[in-house]
């Protein structure tokens, strides 16, 4: 894009000030970052700006904290890093934001323009390196382009299907004089609804279905369309399943909510989808962890697909009718025209039957030796602990989880009332996401309780962020589910690789409670069933950051489980159920 701007520049100031002032005008209140040589001019101006800077202890921590902030608040998350290794350390977080459609602006320092392309100290081709994992990126070679590029970066990040935008800032551009104009932030352009006439076909499909299922994803929350979505479900009374990112759109207590579908989806959800004759897809993208074997996914269903991103329509599964555009006006128009009473009572009863047939057993009889006394005891059971944690946390609490078995247990057993209360790395599956995401979420929503549920593998991936918790006294509560192994990978090895546990056993883990205390956190360890309630209560009562170290049996697996390559009707159910 050319600098086609209506900005009326009135003053000149140094580039670093233009960067900070522009971000302020875009509504930025927090930047997560880490200083270094090529961002020194910005850091030098930071104390004069009302924008708060949070020093994370690794650039990956900073970018994932910005991601968590964005997920929990719906605002654009901002992070900053220096050139070279600072920029390379952002890559995982950018990919994480890209795959989950998270609005983010990442600023990277770069060597001065005259040194670009000379293999200068801490020079990498940040623009080239990050292209596949950003929605867009800019390298600002001229100071006069700073303001419009930054404004455009924020606009791109939050418009349409959101995503991360990277702005690479050579050091001399930050120190040069640059024009600046006081201005309002750009109005976000949303993809308007295309071809609303297709709503007639959509309604006709819904009317003629005998066993319809609503399959809702992260797009509903991103479109801020939860209320319209609930109205649609309430009025049609169509059984509903959600993706990992759609959790929270309906609470578990809603009769029509059959739960999450997919590889570790609930049986009622998967079976209903398999038996359906119409899938009403709202802001979801037929991810392979959702569909299992694609040709066997909802084999008899027609597809009515709503999405803001036209490239998602027919990308994986062809749609019979597609409504392209912003979900909020689409659902609004659909609800306005819902004059129908669906004749699907037998189907609703069938779904209720599936739901009641597959109620979870939270009391499996498994004992092991007590951690301290060696006596046989009933162990902590992860799903039960998380269910009770969620109940104690209440409707406004936020859970940021990491990746692995505990992540799936959170999805299956915790109850969420808003999608922005469940922060989970869905598309990229980034171990180490949880703690920095919880930091970002808690800074964005200081009045709400924020929990990081993590595993012993994931926790070690961004452990350094405990120092960030301590530095700013951020009251994140950590539930560390420690089964002394990389549980999800171990589960695959157990089931499909004849129990060859190659490099997944972590019985040499450190004493996590002592590690947490060394970083200034309160810490407590539990290992028996009778300690579960007291452990949760201790954690939620604690002031400031605290860690509950939960020792788990390494044999407990995640069920149900659709084996890779199978369709979702072939769910494995484990012995610990």
């Amino acid at each position, binding site marked *: *894009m*050319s600098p086609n701007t209506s900005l009326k520049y009135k003053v000149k100031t140094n580039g670093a000030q233009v960067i900070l002032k522009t971000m302020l005008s875009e509504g930025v209140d927090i930047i997560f970052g880490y200083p270094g040589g090529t961002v020194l001019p910005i850091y030098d101006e930071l104390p004069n700006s009302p924008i708060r800077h949070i020093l994370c202890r690794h650039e990956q921590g900073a970018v994932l904290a910005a991601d968590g902030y964005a997920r929990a608040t719906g605002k654009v998350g901002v992070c900053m890093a220096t050139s070279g290794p600072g920029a390379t350390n952002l890559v995982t977080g950018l990919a994480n934001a890209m795959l989950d459609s998270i609005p983010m602006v990442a600023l990277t320092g770069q060597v001065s323009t005259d040194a670009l392309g000379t293999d200068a100290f801490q020079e990498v081709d940040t*623009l*080239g390196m990050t*292209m*596949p994992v950003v*929605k*867009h*990126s*800019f*390298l600002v*070679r001229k100071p006069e382009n700073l303001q419009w590029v930054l404004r455009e970066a924020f606009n*791109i990040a939050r418009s349409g299907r959101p995503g991360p935008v990277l702005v690479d800032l050579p050091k001399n551009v930050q120190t040069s004089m640059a024009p600046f104009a006081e201005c309002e932030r750009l109005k976000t352009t949303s993809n308007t609804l295309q071809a609303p006439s297709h709503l007639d076909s959509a309604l006709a499909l819904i009317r003629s279905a005998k066993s319809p299922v609503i399959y809702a994803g992260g797009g509903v929350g991103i479109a801020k369309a939860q209320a319209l979505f609930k109205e649609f479900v309430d009025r049609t009374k169509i059984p509903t399943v959600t993706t990992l990112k759609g959790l929270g759109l309906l609470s578990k207590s809603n009769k029509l909510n059959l739960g999450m579908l997919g590889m570790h989806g609930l049986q009622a959800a998967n079976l209903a989808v398999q038996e359906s004759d119409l899938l009403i897809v709202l802001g979801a993208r037929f991810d392979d962890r959702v569909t299992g074997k694609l040709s066997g996914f909802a084999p008899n269903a027609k597809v009515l697909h709503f999405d803001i*991103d*036209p*490239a998602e*329509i*027919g*990308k994986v599964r062809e749609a019979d009718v597609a409504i392209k555009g912003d979900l909020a006006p689409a659902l609004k128009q659909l609800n306005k025209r819902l004059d129908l009473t669906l004749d699907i009572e037998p189907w609703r009863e069938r779904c209720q039957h599936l739901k009641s047939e597959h109620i979870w057993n939270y009391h499996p009889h498994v004992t092991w030796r007590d951690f301290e006394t060696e006596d046989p005891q009933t162990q902590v059971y992860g799903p039960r602990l998380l269910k009770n944690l969620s109940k104690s946390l209440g409707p406004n609490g936020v859970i940021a989880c990491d990746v692995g078995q505990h992540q799936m247990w959170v999805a299956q057993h915790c109850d969420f009332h808003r999608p922005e209360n469940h922060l989970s790395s869905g598309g990229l599956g980034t171990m180490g996401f949880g703690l920095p995401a919880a930091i970002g979420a808690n800074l964005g929503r200081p009045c709400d309780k924020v929990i990081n549920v993590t595993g012993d593998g994931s926790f070690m991936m961004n452990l350094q962020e405990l120092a960030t918790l301590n530095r700013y006294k951020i009251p994140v509560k950590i539930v560390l589910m420690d089964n002394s192994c990389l549980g999800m990978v171990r589960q695959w090895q157990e089931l499909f690789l004849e129990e060859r546990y190659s490099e997944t056993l972590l019985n040499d883990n450190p004493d996590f409670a002592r590690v947490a205390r060394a970083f200034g956190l309160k810490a407590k360890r539990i290992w028996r069933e009778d300690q579960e309630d007291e452990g949760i209560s201790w954690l939620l009562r604690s002031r400031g950051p605290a860690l509950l170290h939960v020792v788990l049996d390494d044999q407990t697996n995640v069920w149900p489980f659709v084996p890779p390559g199978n369709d979702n009707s072939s769910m494995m159910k484990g012995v610990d159920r």
Partner: protein
Amino acid sequence: MKKQLTIQLSKAEGALVRLLGLVERRGYSATYLMASPTEHDVFQIEMTVESQRPISKLVHQIDKLYDVKNVEKRQ
């Protein structure tokens, strides 16, 4: 299967690399490419791509690129 595309692309830094990277990453290979500058800071690009995958999916992805002004399949 070979298909031809006509694309108007802003002459922004990295735009050509971004376009070509996308084509390959999505499972298509460019077998012919001609980029001619126009008067308005725009490249007029003629591209032939080869893939087993339907061309419409690639067109949707190219259309999402910020620097792409227009993309059309040539019959």
